[in-house]
């Protein structure tokens, strides 16, 4: 180890700007941390192309690593393979649920050949309420306070809640 603290361990403490209960590692956007002669290269991947949190993630990683004593920090971007909610770790899913945000189910597969099917009508799998576990919930909006979440309401406990939508 050439730095004062293991660079990966430092990068893994950085949290997501919009889902602060999760680290970037929990979210699955932290792809690679490599260290050579005190220089650190971190590779991250954006959740959504237009996600404005990406710049903050880059800065937060640079700050955390510099505070830990690394003078040269490079944050790289990997677009491919694209981020999927399947990369959110089990710990990340638990933390989301504890914060009242329903974690995503398995992401739909993009077919490699043939058109991408368009689902008309209600084919959305029931999302369990993170407060009372009821599956009697209804989607209010596919889009919510951030690009990655949808807005739901529980018909049983009547509470609204957010759901990290499968992508």
């Amino acid at each position: 180890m050439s730095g004062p603290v293991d660079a990966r361990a430092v990068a893994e403490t950085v949290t997501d700007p919009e889902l602060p209960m999760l680290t970037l590692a929990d979210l699955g956007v932290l792809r690679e941390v490599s260290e050579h002669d005190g220089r650190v290269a971190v590779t991250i991947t954006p959740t959504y192309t237009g996600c404005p949190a990406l710049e903050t993630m880059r800065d937060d990683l640079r700050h955390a690593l510099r505070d830990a004593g690394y003078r040269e920090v490079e944050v790289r971007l990997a677009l491919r393979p694209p981020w999927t909610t399947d990369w959110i770790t089990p710990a990340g899913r638990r933390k989301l649920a504890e914060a009242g945000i329903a974690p995503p189910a398995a992401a739909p597969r993009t077919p490699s050949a043939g058109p991408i099917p368009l689902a008309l009508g209600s084919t959305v799998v029931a999302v369990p309420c993170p407060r009372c576990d009821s599956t009697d919930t209804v989607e209010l909006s596919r889009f919510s306070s951030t690009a990655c979440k949808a807005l739901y309401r529980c018909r049983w406990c009547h509470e609204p809640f957010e759901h990290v939508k499968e992508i």
Partner: protein
Amino acid sequence: MSFDNAYEALADADDDARWAYGMDCGDPLSGLDDPIPSDVDGDDLAAYCLMLGDDALVMSHRLQQWCTRAPEIEDELAIANIGLDLLGQARLLLTRAGHADGSGRTEDDYAYLRDESEFRNVRLVEAARGDFAQLAATLLVFSTWRLALLHKLTESGDPVLAAVAAKGVKEVAYHREYAAGWVIRLGDGTDYSRERMLAGLAEVWPWVGELFTPHEIEVRLARFGVAVDPSTLRAEFDAVLAGVFAAATVVPPEAPAMATVSGRAGRDGVHTEAMGYLIAELQHVARAYPGATW
């Protein structure tokens, strides 16, 4: 890194450009390994990136104009989020154009300092804001076409186009679902909502033909497996829309394609009257205060 006080974060002595401070976002493709395919002309690739990037940029701008004007808060959020996704796609594509033509121009140079005739978007996305049904119609047509295009573009020989497409496919699939939901709800709703939906579709339909008319640059790059020839997308587009129209109990409009100007249209930089006003609004601050940061 967390700060208790937002101003402390902005004034952080440790310098780096923070998002929304100076808006010096930097190259969004920084650190991406992105050689130009060796057999491809850099100017052609740049022009193609501008075509797909300008489609997204102009559509995003029109969607942003719906902020505070949507019928319900849920739709306000949806429209803004769709606009944000497209803006993200535009940023990467415009940046890639600056790499491909070797000019080193940034996304801001392309967005804010080009004249109307240098924009290469299709004319569909230019129309001034109409009613909500027209928005649903425009978004259905646009996202159905763009999803089919991006899906094929995931196989592109240009690694950046392939990556942007792979990411975009997931996003645009949600956009299409949202638009289809509203076309069905309004078309199969009350007599009045149906009337408005049909009027919205009739407004949009003359611009559909242009989406599938290949430009010579698209044809050239398609031969190298870098671009998608849009004429190959029509069958999928028609099939998807037939399903939506059947569920919405509407019959697709019959309208002749809008004329070109001596065979030239949006991809050649020939635009509609609405485009000049749109660009004036988009570029006003950047033109009035060159190099300003905030």
